């Protein structure tokens, strides 16, 4: 199976997002690189608004992810509650 | 294969027609396995020039900085013209021996393998 991935700028807000991703995608791998954080997972990854809000302790909208986003790989689907990345194998 | 364009007969202007070079044609020369010269070189040269001129003027001008240049035994050199083995006639013109516009001439120097034998 192929890996989907997402990379975020290494900053305070991203740390919360990464925490949320780790919680919702327990098999994912987090890789710290210069100035960026890359998270990979086999086949599918989900970023959930609710979990991020929980980590941040405030309201957060999915489109706000783009402010810190560097790159991603996989088919994207975004709605109000989550953004998912998938590969069809 | 014709290009797919919005109008029929898409014809682009050929920028490098030989007529545009003021009586010259372009000749490319490369020295095999001597990549200190990063790529073959290009010269504007008269199609009426004898090959001797290529050997005595153009080639030294381009390649003499190489430490092996002085060691070349020109009788042993193997030539290719546009990918085919070729024996140049020193006194015939380029045109007479089929070296036309944008032809590529390569030469190999057996026994000379570049700086420390690395092909440079």
């Amino acid at each position: 199976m192929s890996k989907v991935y997402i990379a975020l700028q290494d900053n305070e807000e991203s740390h919360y997002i990464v925490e949320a991703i780790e919680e919702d995608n327990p098999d994912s791998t987090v890789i710290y690189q210069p100035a960026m954080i890359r998270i990979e997972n086999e086949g599918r990854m989900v970023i959930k608004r609710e979990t991020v809000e929980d980590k941040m302790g405030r309201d957060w909208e999915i489109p706000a992810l783009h402010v810190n986003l560097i790159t991603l790989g996989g088919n994207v689907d975004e709605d109000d509650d989550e953004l998912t990345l998938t590969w069809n194998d | 294969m014709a290009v797919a364009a919005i109008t029929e007969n898409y014809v682009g202007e050929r920028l490098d027609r030989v007529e545009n070079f003021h009586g010259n044609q372009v000749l490319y020369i490369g020295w095999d396995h001597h990549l200190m010269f990063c790529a073959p070189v290009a010269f504007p040269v008269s199609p009426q020039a004898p090959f001797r001129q290529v050997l005595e003027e153009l080639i030294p001008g381009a390649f003499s900085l190489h430490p092996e240049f002085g060691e070349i035994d020109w009788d042993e050199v193997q030539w290719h013209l546009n990918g085919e083995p070729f024996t140049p006639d020193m006194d015939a013109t380029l045109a007479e021996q089929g070296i036309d516009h944008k032809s590529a001439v390569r030469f190999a120097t057996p026994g000379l393998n570049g700086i420390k034998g690395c092909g440079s």
Partner: protein
Amino acid sequence: MSNRKLNLKDKYRLLTRDLEWEYSYRDYEEIFKQESFEGIKITDWSKWEDPFRLTMDSYWKYQAEKEKKLYAIFDAFAQNNGQQNVTDARYVNAIKLFLTGVSPLEYQAYNGFAHVGRQFGGVGARVACQMQSLDELRHVQTQIHAMSHYNKHFDGFQEFPHMHDRVWYLSVPKSFFDDARSAGPFEFMVAIGFSFEYVLTNLLFVPFMSGAAYNGDMATVTFGFSAQSDEARHMTLGLEIIKFMLEQHEDNVPIVQRWINKWLWRGYRVLTLVAMMMDYMLPNKVMSWQESFEVYFEEAATSLFKDLARYGIEMPAYAATAIEEKEHLSHQAWSIFYNYGHAAAFHTWMPTDQEMDWLSEKYPNTFDKYYRPRYEKWREMEEAGERYYNPTLPMLCQTCQIPMGFTDMENPTLTSYRQSEYDGERYNFCSDGCKDIFDHEPEKYVQSWLPVHQIYQGNCGGAEMEDVLGEYYRINLGVDNLDFHGSPDEERWNAWHNLQPAEDKLKEAS
């Protein structure tokens, strides 16, 4: 009245897709003239899916937030003379290449996406392209603003748009984008939206920006990452358009496959410049070209093409060649620029011993065997006061326009020559990829404005190289060009840091 809340999908449908109407006073074909000539069959634009469903209110809001952050950093960088904090003045040459070679491509993307953003018949696709056009404008402008401060303290930035239209090595990226923009709207999307944005920009931006981070270049990291935050949207658009075309009609599949083959090769050749930047121009290295190629091309492309296999799309034809070349590419590119360092608007140099050791470690199969001896010879010549410059202009590939510095991978010290005849004239190429591209559309590629031929035709300011370089290219001779050692950039850098000239250091070191 209690208003039910609209979700993102409904909102996008009502606010964007529903704006369209069926024309009755004019024909669809009059309004979207360019939609059919490429042979792509679209039966239903309403099947277009926009994964982000961005409306203008969100666009303005989030983009303004990004810009606010970005310009705060630019201001701080300039106020604090951040240019002093890069690892080494040699590093700045990487961003000179970036401003002259890459930023103008962002400009071309701005033009190109505006073009397709008008020409597609579906509003969803049009709007996505328009937003990308606007983003690309953002990128060129933020890059100019980031470099504006460097321009005040280093040479070689000052004529970037003039140079992009004329200088030999910039003809490589320029011809790439001219090629894409002169193609029809669907091919443009495969060329730029998919092949470049989806498959290749990661190779351009991510390692390079990490490199900037590793080399203390705050301004570049900031614009780079900020630009990348738009890139995720662009990548997704690129993938979406491919899927859309493939789903619309089976007849589209072979056309799309041919475009993918062509554009991945064309884009990969342009990235030769990046390979060289990564391995040679970053004093503090992040990862080698080979390593980033493995992660961002081989691994990522494999997943992608596995995903696209269900449509009958295969891994592009020349990927195997690109993979074979990964252990040679950057060294061959650096050799080209070292050869023609007198004709470039940035500086070149020979790697230090430590840097050569890094290259040996990263390229155990090739560096010591093929390249180190060459470099040591060049260094020796430099120390003898005879820094090597190639005295003759190079042979260029008709398609990619790069000097023919690539070799046959089965015989890596033999130049790779390819040739075609068309309409009574010979054309030369660096590779099968470039030759096939020409052979398929010779009418297009006979038009290439090849810098070396243009010089020989007398169209670049005169017969003397000084006229070409100084007058036509506007290289400030003896200042912008030649080796880094002995350059005014180096001299100023040393003065800022009270360092002894590198030449002296070089002598001591050897």
